[in-house]
């Protein structure tokens, strides 16, 4: 179960090495994303996360908003 965090905590964690993952589609990601974020579409997460992310570092996922 992931922990819910706000943007201040996101910034703190990223400054300490956390990985940011945008789970939206490629087009939305390319238009604009958080600094340093990588794009892994939600439906491809199970396959791609182990390939693209470092298991030893915290992971922060986000999408458009709470909706």
């Amino acid at each position, binding site marked *: 179960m992931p922990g819910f965090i706000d943007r201040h905590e996101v910034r703190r964690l990223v400054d300490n090495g956390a990985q940011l993952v945008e789970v*939206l589609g490629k087009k939305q990601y390319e238009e604009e994303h958080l600094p340093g974020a990588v794009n892994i579409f939600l439906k491809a997460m199970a396959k791609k996360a182990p390939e693209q992310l470092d298991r030893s570092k915290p992971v922060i996922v986000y999408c458009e908003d709470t909706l």
Partner: protein
Amino acid sequence: MGFGEVYDYVAGKVDWFGAGWPSEGEAAELTRIGALVDAEVPTCGMDDRAEDVRGRLGDDDVCLVVTDKRVVLGLVQGEDLDGDGDPSSVDERPVGELMQEGPTTMRPNVPAAMLAGQIEDGSFQWLVVTDPEGILIGILRGSDLESWAEGEGKEQLATIHEGHDHG
């Protein structure tokens, strides 16, 4: 998947960009209204006396009523403090009783060209800009947006129009 520390930033992009924080991507270079805002807008507290606040209004004829953490609660203008033509009748009243509550606000990440392309010149004097928690960032003057659109924003504005024409 074997990831130990996983967090969900549930408020997401809308929250991050809405705070005017930096971004990357094709749209990241667009000028946002946050860059055109004047942060030196007069402010006051709910309990400040009307007579004291009247003197702070300045050329924009506005004073934002905020909490001690600068969350916007309302605003007052000259007409709110003139006591129906008898200003001294409201001199002692706290502005919290006279203010316009819950003013319309915008987030700083709105592209300036998008806003400039949607409004008529002279259609607004200013807009209140806050972050997603309602904390005051400043005011965007219509005249500043128009100046930007006629100067360095011309190219961005043309791009927006082009997108609409083709879109």
